[in-house]
């Protein structure tokens, strides 16, 4: 059998994770990074992390949410690296894939705006943005996950939308 590294996973486990979750993980990376090539790199990084430190995966019951947290961390790190680079002018931005359920126009606009400014958000706000705009969880559920009341989440989401709108208006 393939030997796992200390704290990591075996080749067979890694292959199983890729075949079962690779697509949705890549999709997640694309949604956060808004760029296919960057998502490809991030997916590689996700699996490097799993190979080295992913042993906890074996014990986790809900595999996908746990893997998403790993992917989010890799994507946020990539966003931070990207934010430090000078912005290339006129480079086309790849839009994230359309959400599975096409909702009303405003919700889509909010999603686009907030995701486009992920790199400018605090770690807390990034998590909030992902839960609300990528995973489309309702405010009560987000509150439970982050340990805040529904009202607090509502307020923070409003402020996030307003900030995103300001950023977009300032840029245009």
């Amino acid at each position: 059998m393939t030997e796992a590294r200390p704290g990591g996973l075996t080749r067979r486990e890694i292959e199983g994770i890729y075949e079962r979750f690779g697509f949705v993980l890549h999709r997640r990376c694309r949604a956060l990074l808004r760029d296919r090539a960057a998502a490809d790199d991030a997916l590689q990084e996700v699996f490097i992390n799993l190979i080295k430190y992913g042993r906890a995966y074996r014990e986790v019951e809900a595999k996908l949410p746990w893997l998403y947290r790993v992917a989010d961390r890799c994507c946020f790190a990539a966003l931070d690296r990207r934010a430090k680079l000078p912005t290339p002018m006129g480079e086309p931005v790849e839009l994230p894939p359309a959400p599975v359920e096409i909702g009303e126009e405003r919700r889509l606009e909010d999603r686009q705006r907030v995701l486009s400014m992920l790199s400018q958000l605090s770690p807390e706000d990034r998590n909030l943005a992902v839960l609300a705009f990528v995973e489309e969880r309702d405010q009560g559920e987000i509150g439970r996950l982050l340990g805040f009341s529904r009202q607090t989440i509502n307020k923070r989401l409003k402020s996030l939308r307003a900030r995103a709108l300001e950023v977009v208006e300032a840029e245009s």
Partner: protein
Amino acid sequence: MTEPHLSAIEVELASVGELDPERQLHLQSCKLCQFEVEQLMRGAEAFLDAQPFEAFALGAVKDALPPEPLRPVRWTRRAALGSGVMACAAAVALFVGTSSPPELRLKGGSSFSAILARGSTQSEHVGEVRIRAGDRLRFSVVLGEEATVRLELNEGEDAPLQLFDGGRMSPGQYFVPEAALRAEPPLIESRVRFYLDGTLADELYIRVEEDE
């Protein structure tokens, strides 16, 4: 009150067989949500076809990957996508054309069978299945009551290979996602053991079909 449709995360969870059982009830009855989950599963199939693990493993991950196992690989694992409710939905289509459903029923109304896909035809087998190179095998588990499920592949003298360890599973029909196999030469005879609650409940012999 009308049950809300699946959220984006729930659609993704359903596509990998991890949707909450309560929400599975909604999925079973909602054509729109089923369509969305199926679309995602199709996307996943296309993704794996375009970049199978072997190709992905040539990227930056290459240096971090543990080495290939020393034992010869006779089977290529090809994870099917999804299980649980979606598997139930898929089963309807899959079993159309199956002339003889398995008669073997295990304790608690459970059963274990192999679905052999050869070209465009599919057939279901209990006890024994005969394979050729290029065949694809999936395993179907029907649970009459809640139980822990484990599948092991035994090849010759080698230590058994754990194909699937699903933990505690609710009653229902599942295609075991991690235990889908594609037969690649050199083919050898092997058997898959099906454990229910830690006890050997059934065995399926995989034999190599002789050339006609």
